[in-house]
């Protein structure tokens, strides 16, 4: 594998946020990422408010991860500082969202990164929009390579894409994010068995451990118990990150995960996040899994989030 700290082309947008750990101004870089995350969180609550539907809780909880991936960690195809999208994604890192209901987060990150115009976020979940309730390539939205929403399929898709990279002698990585409630789907365990057996070691999977699902706490609805021990027993390299909403901790974990790639095992990051993180009244409860804020609640949420890149 290549050196995880020296694999970046010098893209212009990315330069702003690119944070080699060896560089002593990393604090500043993390701060920049946090600013992006605050804007993304603003986008999320505004999008969900705008159509009065969608899933703010999980979206807010995974914001730090997706910002770290797209603005710091993933090697992406770019021209003149703008990302260039093609379906095949050869030579670049790929990300798949298996828990498709946190689409507001993915849409915001893709738009803020430059895949499609930021004002298009206003069309989320509305008629004739490319920003469907759950992501799909059917509407030709740049950055989306697979439909997700029906749970449990994304890790299998990511494995397929990772195998494709191996066949193409392409040493870039494939990332996939799943929910913790999603672990209740049987197909997840088919994929969990498959990846170590076929030594899919260019795959970094992440589970959003927010402990909540629609009907209540995951431990109460259908207890996952010790997911780390399960994945280890299946043959995965497992990492656990307690501070999934601490940008520095997330970035560090992603570096570490990458350094583990290419060693015959798929990598699993158990990422502890807070559902609704960043908006105090949405935090830690399953109540905000799939509920939109009203006008008052929107104002209260936005008051807590810095408008760092300009609202759409």
């Amino acid at each position, binding site marked *: 594998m290549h050196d995880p700290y020296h694999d970046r082309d010098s893209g212009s947008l990315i330069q702003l946020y690119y944070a080699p750990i060896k560089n002593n101004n990393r604090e500043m870089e993390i701060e920049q990422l946090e600013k992006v995350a605050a804007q993304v969180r603003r986008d999320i609550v505004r999008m969900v408010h705008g159509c009065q539907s969608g899933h703010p809780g999980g979206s807010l909880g995974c914001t730090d991860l997706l910002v770290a991936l797209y603005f710091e960690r993933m090697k992406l195809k770019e021209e003149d500082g703008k990302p260039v999208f093609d379906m095949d994604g050869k030579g670049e890192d790929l990300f798949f969202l298996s828990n498709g209901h946190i689409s507001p987060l993915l849409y915001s990150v893709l738009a803020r990164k430059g895949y499609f115009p930021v004002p298009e976020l206003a069309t989320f979940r509305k008629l004739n929009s490319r920003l469907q309730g759950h992501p799909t390539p059917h509407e030709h939205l740049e950055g989306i390579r697979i439909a997700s929403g029906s749970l449990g399929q994304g890790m*299998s*898709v990511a494995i397929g894409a990772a*195998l494709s990279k191996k066949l193409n002698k392409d040493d870039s990585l494939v990332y996939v994010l799943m929910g913790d409630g999603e672990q209740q789907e049987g*197909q997840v365990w088919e994929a969990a068995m498959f990846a170590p057996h076929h030594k899919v070691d260019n795959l970094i999977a992440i589970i959003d451990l927010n402990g909540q699902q629609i009907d209540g706490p995951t431990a109460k609805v259908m207890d996952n118990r010790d997911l780390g021990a399960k994945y280890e027993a299946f043959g995965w390299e497992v990492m656990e990150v307690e501070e999934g909403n601490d940008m520095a901790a997330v970035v560090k974990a992603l570096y570490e995960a990458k350094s583990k790639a290419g060693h015959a095992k798929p990598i699993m990051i158990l990422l502890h996040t807070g559902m609704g993180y960043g908006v105090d009244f949405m935090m830690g409860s399953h109540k905000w899994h799939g509920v939109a804020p009203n006008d008052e609640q929107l104002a209260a949420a936005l008051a807590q989030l810095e408008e760092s890149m300009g609202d759409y």
Partner: protein
Amino acid sequence: MKKYTFTEKKDTRSGFGAGMHELGQKNPNVVALCADLVGSLKLEPFIKENPERFVQCGISEANMISVSAGLTIGGKIPFATTFANFATGRVYDQIRQSVAYSGKNVKICASHAGLTLGEDGATHQILEDIGMMKMLPGMTVINPCDYNQTKAATIAIADYDGPVYLRFGRPVIPIFTDADQVFEIGKAWMVNEGTDVSIFATGHMVWEAIQAGEQLEAEGISAEIINIHTIKPLDEEAILKSIAKTRCAVTAEEHNRIGGLGDSVAQVIVKNDLVPQEYVAVNDSFGESGTPAQLMEKYGLTAADIVAAAKRAIAKKK
């Protein structure tokens, strides 16, 4: 009646295996996947020559379908293979979301379709697969009639960009089409021109239709026989041209009468040119254990059933 003879009987799944073998040699992007049924799918020659392009998925069909969808990202052409029952009904949602709705270039290749896998019984005898697959927007559905045509179809679908369901089977049946045929997706094949009744058949029911055509000819009835190897997209032009001449239709398929070829043809007839139609199909039931020949007879899928249906259709003509 055009004379059709055969020198050899073979299973259509072996035609698939032969097609895969050839594809392995000529298309470096073709990848085969299987869920613990390599021998049944006749994949050994492909695997022997291209071990790096074979993915053993174990008994995990849902994972296999979604892995196939992922493989297309990067330009691979995955052929996901298992029995028809496990390739469709068991994984309908995976096909729907990861393949059809996502518009992925996945070839779902299903053996042991219909009743004629025989003794394993109804758990393995799917009779609803054509219906499920044709209902998916963007899905192409192909059901070839013999070994040679299955081989040709296998090779043809690799060059077509889009999701395909390719259906074939286990029983040995006569080889009566050309070994060097070019398979054209969506283009019905005129087996025999006739004037009194149109018989639209698919899969190995095409051979039964030929036998029926000969019996009808002996009774002075001229049957037009058309092989509908592609159920979707359907060759409506060929159907309309034929019924314009014969003014009645019979459809023949090893599938539930609900949702199969018969219903597809009926839609064309109802919308364009009302003529009587008779179905030869399984009458909305599950199958059971037995030999293929016994099952074909019990469930009404023989040449004699086609002859009877043709006479009923002709009798209803105005």
